[in-house]
């Protein structure tokens, strides 16, 4: 009997330590695991490195985690979405470090981290400021940049349906970084709107196989960043 369910988001993130590296799924609000992020704020771990494509909007979710002063460093491709003020303010004040990575390189570095590929050569960013200080090499007459696999201590993602083995289906463009992030952390936690017994999902259609998932939390009606922001919400 395998059952990866845990009873709450708070239990799921209880063992996050200060200084941990955390991958957080989502592209904008699509796929952002807000309930897990809020549980992490309650939990209190600080000095975190956050790996996520954006930095959140308004005063909820990822932006709230930043605003609470828990994040030491962000590894990210696009930290200034419309509606994001928390990160820009912290960054200008020198209170958060930024490692800017092209979006495709970020995805590939996370995939590599999860797939046991130590490093790879990509043409992306060759000859640009984002390749400065990085090793380069020509393949077929074209300059490539050496990029390293990226791993984390925890991954927090949002699924549409999970089963008790941790198999996951996603919702449309909420999928984005979640499948790679699931593979690249020591502990992968998914919040899913629906949780079903193993055997109910079509084995041909599963996007993230359960081997990549450690904890499943049932969050029946997940909040959306835009809806919370429209309501003027802030967390905590």
């Amino acid at each position, binding site marked *: 009997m395998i059952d990866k369910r845990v009873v709450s988001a708070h239990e799921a993130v209880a063992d996050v330590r200060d200084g941990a590296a955390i991958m957080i799924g989502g592209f*904008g609000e699509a796929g952002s695991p807000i309930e897990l992020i809020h549980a992490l704020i309650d939990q209190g771990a600080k000095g975190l490195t956050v790996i996520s494509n954006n930095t959140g909007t308004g005063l909820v979710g990822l932006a709230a985690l930043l605003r609470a002063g828990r994040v030491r460093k962000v590894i990210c491709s696009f930290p200034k979405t419309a509606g994001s003020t928390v990160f820009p303010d912290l960054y200008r004040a020198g209170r958060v470090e930024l490692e800017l990575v*092209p979006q495709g*390189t970020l995805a590939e570095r996370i995939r590599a981290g999860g797939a046991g590929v130590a490093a790879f050569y*990509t043409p992306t*960013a*060759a000859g640009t400021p984002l390749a400065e200080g990085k090793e380069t090499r020509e393949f077929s007459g074209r300059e490539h940049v050496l990029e390293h696999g990226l791993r984390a201590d925890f991954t927090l993602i949002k699924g549409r349906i999970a089963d008790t083995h941790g198999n996951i289906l996603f919702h*449309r463009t909420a999928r984005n970084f979640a499948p*790679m992030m699931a593979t690249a952390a020591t502990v992968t936690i998914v919040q899913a709107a629906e949780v079903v017994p193993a055997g109910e999902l079509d084995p041909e259609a599963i996007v993230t196989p359960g081997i990549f998932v450690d904890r499943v939390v049932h969050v029946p009606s997940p909040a959306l960043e835009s809806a919370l922001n429209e309501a003027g919400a802030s967390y905590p």
Partner: protein
Amino acid sequence: MSAAPQGRSQEATLGWSREGIAERVAQDIENGSYVNLGIGIPELVAKFVPAGRTLVYHTENGLLGMGPSPAAGQGDPELINAGKRRVSMMPGAAFFDQATSFAMIRGGHLDLSVLGALQVAANGDLANWSTGADDAIPAVGGAMDLVAGVKRVFVMTTHVTKEGSPKLVERCTYPLTGRGVVTRVYSDLAVIDITPRGFALVELAPGVAFDFVQERTGAPILRNSTRRTGA
């Protein structure tokens, strides 16, 4: 329906409007192409695709077969494009993760990317992600991946900045997005190819003279290019 209002300067009415540029770009995209339209002005291109052609739109956050945005307030907040706007999907659409999405981009599977620009150089260098200003929050998204991987990169841009400086230059002064990556520039004044010998005129906007374009360009434009329209 009427001529340009009296008193407006010649420049304000010369050349293509944003929609005109988009229409001109759309003419050069073949049926069946897989296309990534950059956030902002390039998105207009989808409105001007000639009848009888079907393009498949890729959005790098994980959808192929993207359709138009729904009415304001409608749609699914988790069915969005790279600009984080709600969109729809067309028959034959497919969702996938970011690694797959950028495998499409980096692996040369997309036929065309249409992007905006801060500067384009005569050698095809593109700068479109940062002015390098000290207080700017650096953000790059998928721009560097797109220019590194997509087969052809079209730039859509005004020919000069709001201050009147050329955006087509000898060498980019802003931080680069990629080196030697631009195929062709569509501005309000002209269509200009990037060739091994630099900028080369493809077509002038209606009513625009060559010298007028050359004066507003930071590098020489070859005029007697054998290439005209089409790409």
